[in-house]
């Protein structure tokens, strides 16, 4: 049986777990290195990247995460994108709260292109980061908003600056991620 881990130190882990439940996929909340060994894929939810980085260092998760994400498919959303950049697995320039404060948060229509298919979805951007530029030529961009990449992919890693867990129209992101986990 497929088991997906959701990093659950802080943030939108419940919202991701709800989506996985709807999609009929078993998930576990990951808070320690031991749990990492049991999962076939890993989700980094949104939240506050400063808080998550603090907790990962304090509770000896940083190195374990770095090792495990090179082995299994990963889905990172919002703050998770910043984390993957800090973990040196995504070579990108990213600006925290790039759109501004909560009053600038909103839902923007997105067009996502993946493997010859096109998806139209509502992107929830909540104090979202902006990917200002991509350093690694191996990174593919699946969707843009106002010329900035908002959904990127590199080998086993899928990352969105918006929150697919907050809109049923965007569950395709989770489905694509789960496809990778099943392979």
């Amino acid at each position: 049986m497929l088991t997906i881990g959701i990093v659950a130190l802080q943030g939108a882990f419940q919202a991701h777990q709800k989506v996985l439940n709807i999609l009929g996929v078993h998930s576990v909340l990951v808070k320690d290195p031991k749990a990492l060994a049991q999962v076939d894929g890993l989700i980094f939810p949104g939240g506050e990247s400063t808080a998550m980085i603090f907790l990962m260092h304090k509770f000896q998760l940083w190195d374990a995460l770095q090792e495990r994400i090179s082995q299994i498919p990963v889905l990172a959303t919002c703050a998770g994108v910043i984390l993957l950049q800090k973990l040196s697995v995504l070579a990108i320039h990213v600006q925290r709260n790039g759109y501004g404060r909560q009053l600038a948060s909103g839902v923007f229509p997105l067009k996502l292109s993946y493997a010859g298919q096109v998806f139209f979805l509502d992107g929830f951007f909540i104090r979202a980061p902006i990917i200002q530029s991509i350093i690694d030529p191996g990174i593919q961009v699946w969707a843009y908003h106002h010329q900035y990449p908002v959904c990127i992919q590199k080998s086993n890693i899928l990352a969105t600056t918006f929150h697919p867990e907050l809109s049923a129209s965007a569950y395709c992101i989770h489905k694509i991620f789960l496809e990778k986990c099943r392979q």
Partner: protein
Amino acid sequence: MHHTIQKKVNLGFVEMFKGGVIMDVVNVAQAKIAEKSGAVAVMALERVPADIRKMGGIARMSDPQMIQEIMTAVTIPVMAKVRIGHFVEAQILEALGVDFIDESEVLTPADDYHIDKHVFKVPFVCGCTNLREALRRISEGARLIRTKGEAGTGNIIQAVHQMRVIQKEIQSIQKLKPEALLSVAQKWDVSIDLVQYIHQKGHLPVANFSAGGIATPADAALMMQLGAQAVFVGSGIFKSENPEKCAEAIVGAVSYYHDPVILSKLATGLGGAMPGVIG
């Protein structure tokens, strides 16, 4: 933006705080310590509740300049408090661009009625001591509920009591026959939709955090085990002997609230907690 979309965006924002600690801070230096110690947001205010209790007088919205300085100093969300019913203080904070407004009983109330929060774009959190108050605040447009506890005391008893009361009341609503729900809605002056929601789902339609009296990592973990989804810590951190260490330990305790071994390490060697008073 359309009202229902705004509501979803603000409810989505609340998801980001879960499993986190929101810390009261009175200046930039404290805000930076809070951010460094893993806070998911800071609550900017002029005096922490313990000092409001001690000094007395009328407690009002903070000076916008002080809030603005904190907003510039940290990258995490900044919340600020307005007096109950003082919709102009709320207008000012929204114009300032704060991320969340706390319509708070910690300040001196400005009205017998709460603010109509539906007319604002910025999300609001409100306190409650029981299910009726929670549902009233939600009908007025609150996107997040926190139990009030007893702010500024360092005494956890009210926070615990209120969390239990709300859960007990939710359970009693769930046991009612569907035809009995309307009388509850009428008695409490809340919409039948809200009461039906509680009846069907067994939880509030917005998140429920804990506040008012949390002074130690064990207090924070206690509230999480009792069902809080995150905690507000007011005077507990910056009135303790070693604020930075205390802040870090409470942040850790909220993430690992289920793990007594980790909690025992976090509770060790913190120095004195805030002295506290019997509320």
